[in-house]
């Protein structure tokens, strides 16, 4: 096999997730998350500690927020554009992520969970209820 970059594309729960071979420099993997009143899809993702990942955030109705302070993320998600957030989580745990851009009466219920696991997993996983 050549030393060219190898990429594995996984389809999990309807979400395309890319994963680069560990022997080569890691490109940030991508997870797409859509926001709409009053939920995120998927509403739970699992990341691997120390591995870079890019979250591609979109909104299908109005401006929402995406905030998880322990991971250093706090941004708005505007409809009609993709907001990309790249991170390399360095601490395992379960992090509640909230919409912090007021979007209506159900706003306070709009949240999802980002789980960061210690090494061993080779794929990022996402699930939607």
């Amino acid at each position, binding site marked *: 096999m050549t030393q060219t970059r190898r990429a594995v594309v996984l389809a999990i729960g309807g979400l395309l997730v890319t994963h680069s071979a560990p022997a080569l420099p890691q490109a940030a993997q991508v997870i797409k998350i859509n926001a709409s009143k009053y939920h995120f899809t998927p509403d739970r993702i699992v990341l691997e500690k120390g591995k870079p990942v890019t979250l591609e955030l979109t909104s299908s109705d109005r401006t929402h*927020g995406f905030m998880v302070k322990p991971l250093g993320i706090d941004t708005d998600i505007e409809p009609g554009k993709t907001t990309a957030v790249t991170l390399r989580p360095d601490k395992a745990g379960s992090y509640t992520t909230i919409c912090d851009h007021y979007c*209506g*009466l*159900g*706003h306070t219920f709009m949240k999802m969970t980002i789980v960061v696991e210690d090494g061993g997993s080779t794929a990022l996983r996402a699930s939607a209820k």
Partner: protein
Amino acid sequence: MKKPVDRRSFLRVAGASLGIGALYQFAPMLVRGAAADEVSGDLQRLNGEAPASFTFAQFSDPHVGFQGAPDPLGTRAFESAVALLNRSPHQPDFVLFTGDLTHDVDDRDAHAARMRLFRKIAGGLKTRAIHTVPGENDAALDGGVLYREHFGESHYSFDHKGVHFVALDNVSQGSPEVGAAQRAWLQSDLARFPASTPIIVFTHRPLFDLKPEWEWFTRDGRAVMSMLAPYENVTVLYGHIHRHDARQIGKVRHYAARSLIFGFNDPATNETKHQLPFDPGDPFKDLGICVAASRRESETAALSMSEIVLTKAEISGFSGMQQMIKGGQAADGSSSDDAD
């Protein structure tokens, strides 16, 4: 020999108990003696007006239009707080409202009706002067357009008896922030004052990270507080969290007023935010308002603050819960959705 009075101790906040009710008390108090007179004179020279005794009240989060669980009484707590304050023999100079005057509703006309109902109830105060800032329920969905139609600008400042008051809007942009334009205005507004000026900021959300995962923070709160850092006597009054909270961060004192609709649980001991349940035996439990008073006392403190809590005494005149619930129907139609 008496100790000299420095400006900070002269103006520090001190608590005082009023025993009943649901009010915060906040006020400048003057001290006696030559040293105090010297400080007072110094402040008058520097600030243009010496601190004088006065009283003001803080009301927060009445959510006019909210109806149903966990509070079936609608505007009753708000109305009772107005009545409670009106019964005071010493009327405050003005009342501050720190946001969520109304409960959000999609229909613009219905929301406008709630704002008019708020004004009608607030108009029952003997104290005619009120100063408001918006909460996200009032202003976050339309950028504050409807709020400004009913209440005027969402950020401004004024001076009162030697104290500079600053109203900050940290909700109208939808996101929890003051924003660059308003921060520039604040910088300009503060520039004309010496560091000794007593400053009271009132806003809706906390200007520090109280509990970010519950949305109890302001994105650019740190930037705002850095602008206030040069000033020796700063107090921030806010709402949003529907519970009493008092803490000092650096030189700045931060006070949250209880709401007038329902309380939230304790962030220090709970993972998840939830509304406190309605107690038919104590319908105003966890609710309150905030009254600020100043009075000449002993040898200390120019600013003082204390809390009073609404009790069952405030619902005297009602024959019972059924009558209260029946009487609590809002005139404009109301909702029982979750409130922030």
